[in-house]
């Protein structure tokens, strides 16, 4: 009996290891990845970074321009989250099991959110590039679509989690649909929702860098220009500005989370 237990355990472990090796091997084959090159390039990259990737005093002349672009990027990600939050809240009310009007509308709301969430921001920005061109609005809309899909799912989960009991209690007293939403759903789920909004803003600043490279706007574009000009000292200064911004935001949102949750 005990023998069999350990035999089974070993066999399962062996099978799982085999599966992982199989996946790794086929992934390496498909992507033409080279393990040797990986190990040789890591020390080379570190040496290169230390000797080339640091800001010099000359690169600080670009600092005002970089900060200007960074501020624009922060505004863009906050604006996209604000708009996304408004739409996501409406869709979450329609989509959550506790507050939806009926199953049909609920399914449609969830379906739309799934559609928006699963098309990556990269694809959104490439699509929007056609009509909005190299413009701040391209990034804003791409971030908006991505955030909207994600926030709708997060809000639905939040409402489902915290809302059920209080909604039922209010419905039992004969409260109308709108007063259930205003007096039960919103107050009980708002701290969690604000926490998701803060997460989304942080996340959007990272995505904005990527979208900036793709669409030619904001801080991503500033980095891309310097990087392609092989002007690595200024590029490293941009990276430092981004890191400081994100750490600062993280600090603020951690503080807010500690107070409200």
């Amino acid at each position, binding site marked *: 009996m005990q023998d069999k237990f350990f035999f089974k355990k070993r066999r399962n472990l062996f099978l799982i290891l085999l599966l992982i090796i199989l996946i790794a091997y086929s*992934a390496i084959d498909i992507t033409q990845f080279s393990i040797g090159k990986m190990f040789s390039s890591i020390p080379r990259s570190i040496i*290169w970074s230390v000797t080339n990737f640091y800001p010099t005093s000359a690169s600080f002349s670009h600092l005002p321009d970089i900060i200007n672009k960074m501020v624009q990027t922060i505004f863009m990600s906050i604006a996209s989250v604000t708009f996304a939050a408004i739409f996501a809240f409406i869709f979450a009310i329609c989509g959550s099991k506790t507050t939806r009007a009926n199953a049909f509308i609920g399914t449609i709301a969830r379906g739309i959110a*799934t559609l928006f969430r699963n098309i990556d921001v990269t694809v959104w920005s*490439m699509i929007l590039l056609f009509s909005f061109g190299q413009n701040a*609005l391209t990034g804003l809309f791409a971030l908006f679509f991505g955030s909207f899909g994600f926030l709708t799912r997060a809000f639905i989960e939040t409402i489902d989690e915290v809302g059920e009991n209080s909604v039922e209690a209010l419905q039992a007293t004969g409260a109308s649909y709108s007063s259930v939403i205003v007096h039960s759903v919103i107050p009980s789920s708002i701290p969690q929702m604000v926490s998701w909004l803060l997460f989304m803003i942080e996340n959007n600043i990272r995505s904005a860098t990527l979208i900036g490279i793709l669409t030619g706007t904001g801080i991503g574009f500033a980095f891309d220009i310097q990087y392609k000009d092989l002007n690595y000292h200024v590029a490293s200064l941009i990276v430092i500005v981004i*890191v400081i911004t994100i750490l600062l935001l993280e600090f603020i949102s951690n503080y807010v989370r500690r107070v409200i949750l």
Partner: protein
Amino acid sequence: MANLNNMSEDFNPSLEFSGKRIKVKKMNKASLVTGLTILGMVLFTIYGLMTFEYDGIKFWHAIVQTLANFKVLFFTPHLTHFTFWQGVFQVLITVALAALTTLISAILAVFLGLLASQNLTSKRTSNVIKGIVALIRAVPEVLWVLIFAVSAGLGSVAAVIGMTFHSVGYLIKAYSESFEELEDGTIEALKASGANWWQIVFQAVIPSSITYLISWTFLRFEITFGVALAMGAAAGAGGIGYAVFMGSSFYFDLREIGAITFFILIFAVLLETIAVQLKRRLKVK
């Protein structure tokens, strides 16, 4: 409200309806901070909208055009530059990039996660590792990939290494939180019986948190799929992301982007469904 007034008058005519609202909720610090956060977001949004560089874009014209583009995208998808099976293979390349990244980072993150959990090491080691993780995560993925691409060249190697940075950071945080959920009593009991650190890890810590580890790893795989897609478009990592980039920036072929979007959508929904199912099953156990 009118009904309520009538009722109170019916019940007790002597009691006059004062019309004053009863305060049921006191203003506390939490609701103040919540309100300020939302107010701040709205103000930043308004200010941002006023100061963006629009370069004289015709907003409504562009919106109408976008909607027309959506119609072309989603209702008349068509492949011109590659066949259906080549498209599937491109998606597979992106999936493989994500899988490789997730595998490497999972292995690294198990060990670093053990070192980062406070119940298994000293508080100081844990804080140092968590600090480094925060720093690594503050640099966007695309920048890691591009920095590595300078000496490794654009391609799958730079992409995997660059993406691994973020993915390891994320997994260390998730893993160490799962490890920290283990009760101190279990570790103490094992310590009292003379078990060494490795025995504690392999007999108690990992078995009790393995379901969380799998669930987190798959969740990260799902995220990394999106990142790998982006790296294809922005950092020459190949795969379906590169196809989107080419379709948008070189061929200007909306119908092909529509077809690619469907490829990505189907795969992403598939991954999400697996992740949700996995999470649900693991939670039940």
